[in-house]
């Protein structure tokens, strides 16, 4: 063993951190080497100087009390924080659940959304009722000829609504009208089924993709709403739902 290794290991030897084999090697070396033996004596002298106890700083009186009381304060505020959280947890959870259910319903049943469609349906019912109150009100252009009604809209709208007569299927076209709905000018076509009037409102759709028919009932009127070929359609009548649906099918198939 070299002196340099021994000098390193003497500390671990004094500290009792060497295994037996290494300890024996160090002892062997110290018997042969005067310098390392002196180093060892220095180490033990130093260690015993530390051992007289006067260098150890015991905690001063009062520190324990101080630590205990600050811990007590901390424990109390920790409990306070936790119970505060617990008190609000059920309310927060309930609120979260309500929001979640509202979201799920909103996602699952678009018909129930208190959205623009809801307001629009209301607007359409009002418009339909008003159009029936006065005969002069019902149509701006009276014609059962689609080739008369369709050109009539030219220059009055920024789009060309599809106009078709379904007389042979029992839904004769009786005329057309200009209306203002959903914050824009729209085309209203009037069809008849025996004594019942059907208003069909048409304007360009905001989104391109087609949506299937959506049926609602308002104040005794049946409403059908769908989007097709870039146009939004609303059909409304006091006609029963089955026949109105039949009418809607005809309109959709015509395009």
């Amino acid at each position, binding site marked *: 063993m070299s002196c340099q290794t021994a000098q390193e290991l*003497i500390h*671990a030897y004094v*500290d009792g951190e060497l295994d037996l084999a290494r300890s024996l090697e160090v002892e062997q070396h110290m018997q042969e080497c005067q310098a390392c033996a002196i180093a060892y004596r220095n*180490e033990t002298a130093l260690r015993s100087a530390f051992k007289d106890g006067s260098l150890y700083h015991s905690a001063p009186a009062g*520190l324990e009390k101080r*630590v205990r009381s600050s811990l007590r304060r901390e424990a109390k505020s920790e409990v306070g924080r936790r119970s505060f959280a617990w008190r609000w947890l059920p309310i927060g959870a309930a609120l979260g659940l309500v929001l979640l259910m509202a979201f799920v319903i909103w996602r699952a049943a678009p018909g129930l959304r208190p959205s623009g469609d809801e307001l629009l349906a209301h607007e359409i019912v009002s418009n339909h009722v008003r159009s029936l109150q006065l005969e002069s009100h019902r149509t701006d252009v009276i014609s059962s000829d689609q080739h008369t009604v369709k050109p009539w809209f030219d220059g009055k709208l920024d789009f060309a609504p599809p106009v078709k007569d379904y007389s042979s299927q029992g839904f004769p076209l009786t005329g057309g009208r200009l209306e203002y709905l959903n914050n824009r000018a729209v085309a209203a076509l009037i069809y008849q089924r025996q004594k019942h009037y059907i208003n069909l409102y048409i304007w360009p759709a905001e989104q391109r993709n087609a949506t299937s028919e959506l049926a609602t009932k308002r104040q005794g009127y049946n409403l059908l709403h769908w989007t097709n070929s870039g146009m939004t359609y609303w059909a409304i009548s006091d006609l029963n739902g089955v026949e109105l649906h039949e009418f809607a099918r005809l309109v959709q198939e015509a395009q």
Partner: protein
Amino acid sequence: MEGQSKLASFETAVLPHLDAAYNLARWLTRNDADAQDVVQEAYLRAFRFFGGFHGEDGRAWLLGIVRNTSYTWMQQNRSAQLNTPLDDELHEVKSDDLNPEALLLQKADAQMLRQAVEDLPLEFREVLVLRELNEMSYKQIAVVADLPLGTVMSRLARARKRLQQILVRHTQTEVLT
């Protein structure tokens, strides 16, 4: 854990090491008032982290927190103490210088030794105090000071050489005057 029972088990596990905590903080900060502040702060930190303590070595766990708290405290209040990085080359002590001094060393009294330890650089003082006064094993020191085991051994060896050097200088001065 409920507040009161957490406090009770914390006090049982950690409060008995108050002397050890104060001793370390006192030697690191070299000041009684600072050491008391550090110990109080360290106990609060330990209490907050007590959930992460699983009944290993409570004393080493606490002293690690005391050490870190001391360093933070010194950084905030006595930055100069930390601004002397440990240069191993600079502090390297040749063993030849020490050989004839065994006798002188034995004359060194406790007051002189205390002064010499206080004069040691922080990194040396820390391992020496943990070993000689807190009587920790190398393994425990490695945990407390966050050092590899091998570094604990070599740093302790250098710390002692350095301490002897300081003592020899002091005793020589005393003999001459």
